[in-house]
């Protein structure tokens, strides 16, 4: 069973401003805010008029984080209490957005994945989205047997909360599901499990 070295594992890069875009929509969760601040400064330097077309949506670790954004994003800064509130508003924002929008996402991979999943529903292509991974590497894991998604998985082997099977967490990633695939870890010899280790920190 191939666990690592799988092509579908997402690759991220430090955010850069895309001055080819006309409108800019920026999302961050937790430590991702620092990356947005950096790219917003860059955008303002490269295309001063873009600041008026920039909207920022934050689910920060603390409210103080939002303060420096007020000065930079004339298009508005919204602060949310948690990722799920942010993603709900994000969907509405996409529905109201126009072609020419560039999406910037920064934060833990599970947050990026959920945002990308919504963006995919709006047919945003990879040339319209950029993402920078910052924060925990804890994974969303999709059980290929019962389809339950386990959140915040930090270990190589996890017990599925849906069906109770022990799952091996692979690097095989689904953008549509925004999750890594988990497959039965002891299918060959029931009860024969590799050591459980914390690997996604």
């Amino acid at each position: 069973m191939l666990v690592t070295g799988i092509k579908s594992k997402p690759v991220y890069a430090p955010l850069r401003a895309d001055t080819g875009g006309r409108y800019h929509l920026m999302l961050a969760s937790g430590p991702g805010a620092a990356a947005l601040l950096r790219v917003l400064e860059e955008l303002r330097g490269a295309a001063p008029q873009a600041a008026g077309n920039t909207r920022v949506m934050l689910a920060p670790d603390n409210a103080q984080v939002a303060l420096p954004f007020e000065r930079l994003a004339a298009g508005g800064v919204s602060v949310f209490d948690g990722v799920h509130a942010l993603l709900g508003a994000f969907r509405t924002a996409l529905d109201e957005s126009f072609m020419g929008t560039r999406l910037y996402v920064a934060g833990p991979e599970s947050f990026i994945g959920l945002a990308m999943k919504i963006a995919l529903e709006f047919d945003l292509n990879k040339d319209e989205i950029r993402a920078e991974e910052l924060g925990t590497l804890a994974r969303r894991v999709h059980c290929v047997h019962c389809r339950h998604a386990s959140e915040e998985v930090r270990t190589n082997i996890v017990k599925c909360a849906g069906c109770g099977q022990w799952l091996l967490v692979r690097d095989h990633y689904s953008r549509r599901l925004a999750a890594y695939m988990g497959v039965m870890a002891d299918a060959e010899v029931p009860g024969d499990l590799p050591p459980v280790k914390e690997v996604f920190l």
Partner: protein
Amino acid sequence: MNDAQTLAVVVTAIEQITPLIKHFKMAAADGGALPAFSGGSHIIVVMRGGSRIHRNPYSLLSSPHHLDTYEIGVRRMEESRGGSHFMHDQVRVGTPLEIAHPVNLFPLDKIARKHVLIAGGIGITPFLAQLEDLHDAAVPYELHYSVRSPEHAAFLSRLRAREGERVHMYYDSESQAVDFDGLLSAQPLGTHVYVCGPAGLINRVTAAAREWGWPDSHIHWEQFAAPPVGEAFEVFLARSKLTVHVPPDQSLMESIEGAGVEVPYLCRGGVCGFCQTRVLESGGELLHNDHYLSEAERAKGNCIMPCVSRARGSKLVLDL
């Protein structure tokens, strides 16, 4: 594609629908069903008349749901190298023709949330077939169609009858023009824009879309380049060990074919990239007329699209 793989068809109807455009219907010579295709596909019509063979690409405008008939529209080109004049002047009901299987280089994006179609003149043809697919789909779309004057508005009654208010007409004669900024500045996310028509229209649409931040993946266009007339030159085909003369009014591909060497092709209009041929040696200048090679690829000088491109100077050697 080469001539061994063509389909035999017979022209079943011809109608002059505007002062410049004739509408042709054709059916399989054996009376059977024609190959399935998707909206935006084109065929190559092989014209064997007179001293030389013409092979021109034409978009299929008939419904992809009806495979008993293919329909094309042919605009009579003033600067014709012979192909459109052959279709207009030589072809009659009952004339047998050979065509290449349909190929789609201008497909609709399957997961788009909205389609904006922009046609200029004869560029309406691929959209007529695409509209057959769009008509029953839940995805919104609109068509913007500009022509010189009302008498040049080919297929308008068909469009009006089926599409109603989704057709927006623009007549040059009444100084009407598409407001590209208005059209492209406030489209919902997931919109794709498609343009087919004269080079000027394609350039204006793609420039306006990029100006408004549309990424290239949402901008689609098709224009078949006619092989331009140029200076005569000679080419040496290294594998065939043949020297071929390319006269001013024949394309490099036509001349090579005339010498009995087959070049694989799909569009013959500089779009698909299928006929890309390695240049082994070039003592002069490559005159690239295709829409396929990037600037970087052109700069390397080691390949050419013989369907529309030419050379100047001495010693062009191709890997054929």
